[in-house]
């Protein structure tokens, strides 16, 4: 039976808590299920001491998760909106990411910070941002951004077991997405991308909710005689350049699509690397699809006008292949 992103994510949390007594959850309202219901029922099942509600103290709870990770727990922290990660950055960037290195390898921070990002339905400027690119600039962090329920299931489990601090970004538009739960013994390797659709004319590189959009675009493009390959990055840090390279060496054209604003976005890094490492392979410039450089407006008409969609990708692809 098909389950939602939220249900499948909850299942991953539930199973990891059952598997490893060191896994603890903390965050605002998590014992009540959290703002989006992801952790619903886990307190009842695993005990209130393992699923802890916190005050509105993003800085302290991130610090506490980090300190606990240094001392034998594997905390999973929920930061309700990535916009509020701004309040947790000192700890994430200055402490958690650097602990292993600064301590000369004595200590590690096996922690997962689950957070939620992206624009939808008028959440407006302070609850809609896509800030993942900040984190790919921080040595010591790992950044994961799943594109579907089952992807989230495996990636979250792998992240929990990884041993280094992982920022795990869930897109609010994916929460209602449904998929059949499929049991599989194997978990995805953090750092490996996946080819979500094969194609030969152009490579579309995407992650998170934009993978679905890219697949839609590929479908439309197929109807117009353009064969698009879609890569689901899964992990933004580290980047799987091998998979990207294999694809672009075949298609000779690339588009990077994300919801974040383009300036300083993850797409800039990917485009720069393709343009450098695959210079001789490229038949056309690497194009980026992303939000224009504007805060997310509240009114749905403005939000819609701003957000990149399948058509934006189709147009970029048609320009490239033309």
């Amino acid at each position, binding site marked *: 039976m098909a389950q939602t992103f939220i249900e499948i994510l909850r299942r991953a949390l539930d199973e990891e808590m059952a598997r490893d007594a060191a896994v603890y959850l903390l965050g605002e309202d998590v014992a009540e299920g959290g703002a989006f219901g992801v952790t619903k029922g886990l307190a009842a099942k695993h005990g209130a001491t393992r699923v802890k509600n916190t*005050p*509105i103290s993003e800085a302290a709870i991130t610090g506490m998760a980090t300190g606990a990770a240094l001392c034998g727990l594997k905390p999973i922290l929920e930061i309700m909106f990535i916009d509020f990660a701004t309040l947790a950055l000192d700890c994430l960037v200055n402490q958690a990411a650097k602990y292993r290195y600064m301590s000369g390898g004595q200590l590690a921070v096996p922690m997962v910070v689950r957070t939620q990002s992206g624009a939808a339905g*008028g959440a407006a400027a302070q609850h809609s941002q896509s800030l993942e690119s900040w984190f790919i600039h921080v040595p010591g962090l790992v950044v994961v951004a799943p594109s579907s329920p089952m992807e989230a299931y495996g990636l979250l489990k792998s992240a929990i077991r990884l041993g280094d601090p992982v920022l795990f970004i869930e897109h609010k538009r994916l929460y209602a997405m449904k998929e059949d739960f499929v049991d599989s013994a194997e978990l995805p390797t953090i750092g490996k991308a996946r080819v979500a659709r094969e194609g030969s004319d152009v490579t579309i590189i995407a992650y998170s909710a934009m993978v679905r959009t890219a697949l839609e675009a590929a479908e439309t493009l197929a109807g117009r005689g353009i064969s698009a390959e879609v890569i689901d990055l899964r992990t933004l840090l580290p980047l799987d350049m091998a998979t990207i390279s294999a694809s672009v060496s075949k298609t000779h054209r690339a588009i990077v699509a994300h919801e974040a604003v383009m300036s300083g976005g993850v797409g800039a890094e990917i485009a720069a690397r393709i343009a450098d490492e695959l210079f001789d392979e490229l038949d056309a410039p690497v194009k980026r699809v992303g939000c*224009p450089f504007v805060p997310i407006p509240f009114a749905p*008409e*403005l939000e819609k006008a701003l957000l990149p969609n399948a058509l934006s990708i189709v147009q970029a692809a048609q320009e490239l292949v033309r």
Partner: protein
Amino acid sequence: MIKTSGALTPRSHFYWITLVQSSAKPADWKTLLAQLWRIRLFEGHVQRLAAGGEVPGFPHLSTGQEAVAVGVCAHLTQNDVVFTGHRGHGHSLAKGCNLTATMAEILGRDTGLCRGRGGSMHLVDAGCGMLGATGVVAGNLPLAAGAAWAAQARQTGAISVVFFGDGATGAGVFHETLNLAGLWKLPLLLVCENNGYAEFTSRAEHSDVAKVSAFAAPYSIPSATIDGNDLIAVHQSAASAIEHVRRGDGPYLLECMTVRLAGHYVGDQQQYRSKEELAEALKKCPIERLKSYLLSQGVTDDELMAIADQIKQEVQRDVDAARAAAAPDPASFAEGVYASPLLAAGC
């Protein structure tokens, strides 16, 4: 003595009231009751429109907490500035924001206070001193302190008021702001609406601190904890708090104990609250309490009905006007990020 003045901003068309504390009479309270009603009715519309899918985002209603907004803002002049948070409709209306433009903003219309760019959580009306709402809990506190600092530095005589919830006291910046406000003796009134919840989590799970006003003590900032559902109590306590602040004696922390009659946001099923608790909460309704008081003072039911009817019609009219307004032009989404179009062009 009631001093009423006409429209304060081009958009404003309700009366501004400054009550001198000691001389408040039933007639004054009636005018304030009208404001409570106005907010209640306004948010009733927000709720209905939201349920009908007409409101983008997730509006947070102040239903049950209106007495704080009205009781405090009654003492403010147009020069004074107000900052609020995610639950700020009441504060905005009480500070003098035009109702149609406020509703238009909440509906995401081009005629909204912020041209539909802000929304329910980001109401701004600079003309009437409503300087902003922030959706990041406690983020408004230092902004308000900064506004107070500017007033002090520029010697404008204005004061700055910030409304925030009890949950905001979990955020470090609340404490940083207290320290700075006390140290610099800023003309800042901090108004905490303690409704016992932060989203779905009760205060007991957030903090061991029973009274938010206790946080002021280490800084020697004067404070009080009052019944925030008693408009008269709020009005009187706010008067003396504001007198202190306006005199230049530094900040004041006013904690108003209140209850949220609605969910955290429109749509919240409140499974975390018992029926008994909700029933108990309803008894504390600030509107019912003020009505009882007025009736006990000889005001008649008919008089109150007449006020209610008038407000109802006015609100309906203004809400209709807001609903009739046009959405922003989609092509305009990039306008207004920077002062200079040159800057914007380079981004």
